[in-house]
């Protein structure tokens, strides 16, 4: 039977599957119960699994994450929602001081099998704090896994793997493409291993590493340059931390060129890390300077300036050409 879903529907199905498979899975956050989430990610969970396991909380992110730590210590697998990644900061203290550290602090006595989900990223013409990409902020914290899917198939498989993972996972969802396209995916539960990138397209001339909502934009750009005879290898990183370093090291050894495309600001971002790794591990294979195309080092603009911020397919295509021509 066809099960053709968007990213948001795939996330909902992953939650449904895991709540069915494992009754220690509980889902909560602001507006996730009765309403089923402002983006409908948790729709029908309460109807299906009851108020004990899928519920609304008072408006307090620190308590949402902090209680999840307690639940995880006490045998449950909480999957909590931050309504937008931009509202995860009240929980920053809990995430950095406890979520990331409990296993190490207790020398393995307490591990935290918990997931923090949040929609992230721009392009939806939203109010302030609803558009940022702050994956680097979390990826730098030892003890946190940061996962970002870009397709319905990956969203489901990665979320299930995140829920089953014995350690805390931040699952950042690219809201710009929540409903952008659908894909036929298995109805039953399946896992996609965390920490594994995916080669979306093999090529000879240049490697592009990207993730989240930038993936379809990169794919558009790649089509544009294809007509000009440029053969591109595209890697969807999928897990920001821990990073699948081999995926792009091997690729750059073949292509000799690398472009990292991300929506987040440039300076001290994930792109900087990827390029450092390339410099350390594949330096002698490089034929052009490793390059980043990213959001600006500015606050994400309100909607009337938004179009400038996210690198467009045209800009990506132009950058690819510049690197190949170098």
């Amino acid at each position, binding site marked *: 039977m066809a099960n053709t879903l968007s990213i948001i529907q795939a996330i909902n199905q992953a939650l449904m599957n895991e709540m069915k498979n494992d009754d220690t899975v509980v889902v909560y956050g*602001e*507006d996730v119960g*009765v*309403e089923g989430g*402002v983006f409908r990610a948790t729709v029908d969970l309460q109807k299906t699994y009851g108020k004990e396991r899928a519920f*609304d*909380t*008072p*408006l*307090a992110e*620190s*308590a949402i994450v902090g209680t999840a730590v307690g639940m995880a210590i006490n045998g449950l697998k909480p999957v909590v929602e931050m309504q937008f990644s*931009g*509202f995860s*900061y*009240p929980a920053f203290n809990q995430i950095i001081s406890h979520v990331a550290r409990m296993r190490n602090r207790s020398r393995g006595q307490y591990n935290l099998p918990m997931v923090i989900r949040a929609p992230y990223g721009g392009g939806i*013409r*939203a*109010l*302030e*704090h*609803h558009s940022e990409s702050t994956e680097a902020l979390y990826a730098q914290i030892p003890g946190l896994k940061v996962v970002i899917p870009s397709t319905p198939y990956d969203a489901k498989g990665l979320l299930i793997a995140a829920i089953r993972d014995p350690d805390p996972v931040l699952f950042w969802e690219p809201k710009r493409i929540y409903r952008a396209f659908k894909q036929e995916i298995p109805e039953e539960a399946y896992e996609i291993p965390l920490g594994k990138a995916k080669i979306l397209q093999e090529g000879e001339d240049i490697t592009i590493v990207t993730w989240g909502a930038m993936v379809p934009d990169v794919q558009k750009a790649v089509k544009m340059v294809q007509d000009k005879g440029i053969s591109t290898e595209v890697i969807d990183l999928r897990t920001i931390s821990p990073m699948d370093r081999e995926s792009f090291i091997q690729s750059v050894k073949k292509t000799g060129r690398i472009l990292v495309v991300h929506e987040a600001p*440039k*300076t001290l971002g994930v792109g900087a890390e990827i390029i450092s790794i390339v410099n350390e591990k594949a330096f002698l294979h490089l034929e052009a300077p490793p390059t980043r195309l990213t959001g*600006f*080092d*500015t*606050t994400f*603009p*309100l*909607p*009337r*300036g*938004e179009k*400038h*911020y996210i690198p467009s397919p045209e*800009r990506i295509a*132009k950058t690819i050409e*510049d690197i190949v021509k170098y």
Partner: protein
Amino acid sequence: MRLEDYNPMKNEMYQVIDPSGKAKEKDHIPDLDDEQLKYLFRTMLYTRTIDEKALSYQRQGRMLTYAPNLGQEAAQVGSAYSLDKEDWLVPAFRELGAWLVRGVPLKNIYLYWYGNEWGSHMPDGVKVLPVSVPIASQLQHATGIGMANNIKNEKNVVLTYVGDGGTSHGDFHEALNFASVFKSPVVFIVQNNQYAISTSRKVQTLSENIALKATAYGMPGILVDGNDIFAMYNATKTAVDRARKGEGPTLIEAYTYRLGAHTTSDDPTKYRDDAEVEEWRKKDPILRFGEYLKENNVVDDEWIEETKKELGEEVKKTFESIEDNSDTELEDIFKYHFEKMPAQLQEQLDEYRSFLEGGK
């Protein structure tokens, strides 16, 4: 009025005019002349008109996400009217009536909701902070502004707002505690409109009301009928006077109702009954105040119709003036992070400009 005459521990609520517009506590009718009364009513109608037009523009695809204030006009206009010229207003994001009272031009308000940062840049002399989207975070700023007043020995006071949902946040409790400990001249208004998006007030707290939370912080708290403009004005004025005299902060719960959606992205039929909304429609603060004013020969139906028409035209004119020329200037995205733009930002701006101009 005296705050202590209404005990939140006993769930007593302060009300001056009842929902039918009749004066319930005659000696509590504030000493305002007809022009002042008309100004208040006009501002409530202005608030309503701005909302209704914004919602209709939004439906036509001409406006982005918008958070209406429908049903909360008395809570906003009545409270803000108690301030003096030099006082501060520290809003959350659903305080349109209060912004208008404090002199925020509609152009700013629409520009903000239209997605341009300049909406948050107030004209000189308007002591109103920009919208604070992270729930309850603004309360700390209000407390700090008041603490600075104490240090500088200045007598102006701070009026700040939060929703019922916001009272669950750590920031709410920390701000109240600081305000009390440091005797900060702040008045905290909780607009309890019964919902935080889909989440009922009953889910936020098991406390019988929100006003009584003040007790634990050692400050007065009062539960006020938020749809009664006189009750809101009197209670806030009393609290503002206290603050100005150096007696510290007050918590006011404005008991009201969000008649509209949370924002234009929200569908309230998913989480509440029409019957409940209908009950509250009968308590519409604009109807109530209108009845009172007509009964007392301050306004008549003709005045109301004329005023609505005039406001409608003004709102339309203002919206159209920003509609086609409010795109963000590219440089503005970069220019305002620091007093001087760092080299790396300048470089990013230059690179992007040269891309727009057709390449290096």
